[in-house]
């Protein structure tokens, strides 16, 4: 019998005719939003304009309605992250040895992590040194640091510092749920959009299949930076905003 892949390759399917997407897209990018667009997208430019006038760093209160809130947060520039306003339902993690039990992936050596995740950059902040544990996940790498001068153990992770790196994506793949106790600040770190989340909040990744968010856990203070080179940094620990920013800036 014939070689099936070769047969399939030579098969010509009766595809529907490709529409003039170049023309339609050009028209949408130039003109006002046509009716086909979702309402949420239609008012986005107006809000973006309003926000541009606001100072670079400000705190958002939780008073905004849930729908408007997630839309506003998407506007602020981190498309890889979705923030929802609701009480996190996740349990606090029960960490064992450094980083285990946090769903970070497979424990690996630093060399193996570099091989699996070529985007990996090590933070060089003073006093941090090399990570004590490294995990490689699905499209992510996690550096876990034990207690050291200036960094105390955080209850949420059992580690002093957790630095995760992901290639950023256009669609949200990290979900945050903020309860009333959590506070969110927008920052800029070396010109890149960033959020600092103070207080415990829910945290979930999108599953590999891209359909759902799973493995939610409770997280502590977290800085998220979506760098212009496409690297998304997530820094979690019992640390103040300034120290988290210093760690983020030390990532080459």
């Amino acid at each position, binding site marked *: 019998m014939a070689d099936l*892949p070769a047969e399939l390759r030579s098969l010509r399917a009766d595809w529907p005719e490709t529409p003039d997407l170049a023309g339609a897209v050009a028209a949408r990018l130039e003109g006002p939003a046509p009716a086909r667009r979702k309402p949420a997208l239609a008012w986005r430019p107006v809000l973006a304009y309003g926000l541009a006038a606001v100072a670079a760093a400000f705190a958002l209160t939780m008073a905004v309605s849930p729908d408007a809130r997630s839309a506003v947060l998407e506007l602020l520039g981190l498309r890889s992250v979705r923030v929802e306003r609701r009480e996190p339902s996740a349990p606090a993690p029960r960490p064992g040895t450094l980083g285990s039990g946090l769903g970070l992936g497979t424990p690996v050596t630093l060399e193996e992590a570099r091989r699996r995740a070529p985007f990996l950059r090590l933070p060089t902040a003073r006093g941090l040194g090399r990570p004590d544990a490294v995990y490689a996940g699905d499209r992510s790498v996690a550096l876990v640091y034990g207690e050291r001068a200036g960094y105390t153990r955080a209850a949420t992770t059992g580690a002093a510092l957790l630095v995760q790196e992901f290639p950023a994506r256009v669609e949200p793949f990290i979900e945050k749920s903020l309860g009333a106790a959590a506070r969110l600040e927008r920052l800029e770190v070396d010109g890149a959009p960033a959020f600092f989340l103070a207080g415990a909040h829910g945290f979930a990744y999108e599953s590999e299949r891209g359909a759902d968010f799973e493995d939610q856990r409770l997280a502590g203070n977290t800085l998220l930076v979506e760098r212009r080179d*496409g690297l998304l940094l997530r820094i979690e620990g019992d640390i103040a905003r300034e120290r988290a920013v210093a760690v983020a800036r030390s990532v080459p």
Partner: protein
Amino acid sequence: MVVGRPLQEHELVERARAGDAGAYAALVRGHEEIAFRTAYLITGDAADAEDAAQEGFVRAHRALGRFRTGEPLRPWLLTIVANEARNRRRAAGRRRALALRAAGEEHPSGEAAPSPEAALLAGERRAALMVALGRLREDDRLVIACRYLLDLSEAETAAALGVRPGTVKSRLSRSLERMRAELGDPDG
């Protein structure tokens, strides 16, 4: 394969980033067919596929600043368009059958036309392949169609399906086995 194509695309991306609408239109033109067909495989509906591809290209334009210079554009675009297609498919809430049929054979010029019997057999085989493909589970059908009907690379198939390249390899070999069983072909 067009020699020098990556450089041209890279230049178009740079120009599009700088606000050159014509450059972005040229990029869309170059990828609209593969994007539309990928979306069509996922949604099973031409109108939904058109919506998904159009929205995907608009989103990609907004995200161009974060596209990593030097990387191939096509898998990146396919990731965005396929995401849009999956969203529409989920919203539609029902599974659609693959409506593709095999198109008629065309021989490369200069080659002798096959005998009527051979042409008939080949036509039947093509129809049987499409029927078998349509009967497969969605996962199997998508990976085979992306890889062989659209001739996407493994990396591009992974981008379109939202899975790792390693997953494409293993899924593809399983899916081909199931398709052989569906066709009643011997293994291999």
